[in-house]
């Protein structure tokens, strides 16, 4: 999936770049390809990479941005989270295609900025993992809601927030914001909502 964007270098904050982009239009456009990679280390301490290639650069080196990320409560990728206390395993290894990107997702548990990926049968060959997202803990409007001293579902309080029911979680507001920006501006897709994006996620150990 190639997107066409204006290149401004990395010394300008992303928000400023986005503003200038809207003014600059397509002048001097360059092409990028981008995709996510999730490198499984531990449930609360892994890395989510955004890889992209700028096809206008000599030799097209692979650029990598990464954020600390968590996934699941166990390292058994076939564990499905349930209210029974069954703990969700981290995201199954393999490749995925994006099903959509949302700025203001409004699910019962996931809200705000969220990337939705295709379902996956895990490595036992018989367990279907579904509803797989990259997300954070924030409100639908991308703000923090922290009314209690405990673990509020739409508030990034502590390291424990990296633990998830099986999705990939990154910290709010900064890291989900930069992941969002890179996705839209370096080879992801400019669209929002549910769509077939063609952008990939690769999960490996």
């Amino acid at each position, binding site marked *: 999936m190639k997107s066409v964007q204006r290149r401004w270098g990395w010394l300008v904050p992303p928000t400023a770049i986005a503003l200038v982009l809207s003014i600059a239009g397509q002048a001097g456009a360059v092409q990028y390809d981008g995709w996510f990679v999730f490198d499984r280390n531990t449930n609360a*301490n892994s890395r989510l990479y955004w890889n992209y290639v700028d096809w206008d650069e000599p030799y097209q080196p*692979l*650029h990598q941005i990464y954020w600390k990320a968590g996934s699941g409560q166990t390292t058994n990728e076939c564990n499905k*989270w349930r*209210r*029974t206390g069954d703990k969700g395993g981290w995201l199954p290894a393999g490749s995925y295609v994006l099903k959509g990107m949302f700025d203001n997702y409004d699910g019962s548990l996931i809200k705000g900025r969220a990337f939705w990926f295709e379902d996956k*049968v895990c490595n036992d060959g018989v367990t279907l993992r579904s509803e797989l997202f990259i997300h954070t803990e924030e409100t639908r409007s991308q703000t923090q809601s922290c009314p209690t001293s405990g*673990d509020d579902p739409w508030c990034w309080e502590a390291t424990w927030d990296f633990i998830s029911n099986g999705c990939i979680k990154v910290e709010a507001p900064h890291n989900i914001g930069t992941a969002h920006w890179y996705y839209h501006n370096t080879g992801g897709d400019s669209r929002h909502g549910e769509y077939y994006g063609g952008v990939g996620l690769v999960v490996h150990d």
Partner: protein
Amino acid sequence: MGVLVLVAVGCGEPIPQAPTTPITDSGPTLTSPPLTDPGQAAPPSSLPGHKPMAVEDVPGLPEGLWVARDYDTKGAKPRGVLEGAKGGRSIVLGLEGSQAVDPLSGGGPGVQSPDGRYVVYNSWTEVKQLDHSQSLVEQGIDFGDPVATPSLRLLDLETGEDRLFEQGAHTIAWRRDGTIAYMKGDESFKRLNVPYTGQVVVRSSLDAPAEVWTTEPGDYMVYGWAGETLLVYRLFGELQSADLLALDSAGKVRLLGQLGVMTISPDGERLLVAGALENFVGPAELAIEYRIVRVADWETESILDPTSVPELQGVSGSATWVGDLVAAAHAEGVALLRVDEAGISFDRLLKLDLKHYPYGAEGPLLSADGTQVVTLATETRGNSPHRYVALSCDLVKEKCKRQAPAQQFLAPIYNPSRPL
């Protein structure tokens, strides 16, 4: 099982092959903070004061019916094999191109009829041969396209006849009097990234007409019978949250809340359920409490607060209940709980060696006399892939027999309904 290559995507444009060019870290200002923390959630650090149970190798499988699938099967999609039938027969399940055990069933392969003659099992037939380590979209299945047909198949253990029982259906509960319940889909196909919805239907016998018991279509999973009441999950939303429903008869549905049934009491009158713990400081995903509730009026008889006993933090969902003893799956082995007149309490933890069984025990089954427990475990030895084994453990001697190693998939045919 790392897969590092993405090939052509649906729009026909390639996603680059994983790193073939020099890797540069562009990160002047936007990389993450140093990776220092920790709270690695799993596997948990070993609890103090418990010695792992000794394990010895024994051939064969534990008593009962099992569905197994070998990890190393080559060629066509491997099918399940039913082991443990009378006379030591191995029965290949399903049709060519299908697999026993439906991903929608939550891993439960099937249920044996109370009279012991039949097995109804979950089957899954994909629209074509698929490589699940790769994106299905890249294999030509777009979002919303059919992936597979879930079906229920009926195996007669006396004659060996294996036939289709219901197409577009999954998860079964079989009552002592022969009444059978299952989820019947609105359509035959499970579609990619689309919930599989339908209704829960009940037949008074295998040949009786189906009667719809739910009042609206939903993404249901049938759990089991507690006496005359059918327990059903209704999945919803992202992360597949689940409501527990009690179906007392056709159209009479009670919403019990976001709870999970760990096990049903032997008389079918009470449940051990797990649910969210109020006012817990810590990750909400770990805030689970355990309650004994009456099926008839949903009154709570006793509560076990996991924050009061460190060992309870590792308890996961499934359990079995014999007499006053409950054996529950635990991240380090098998947790034994007591349910008596004083209420529910923690008894002890039977530990497995986390070096070989890093995920602890799954689905422990207590023997009828409560002296043995058979559990599944995912085994890691050397560089070999994770494989299932069955461990039969003596609760008094705290020793286990290791059986049926090297299975990609292994699960008992087990009926959680009570009484039986």
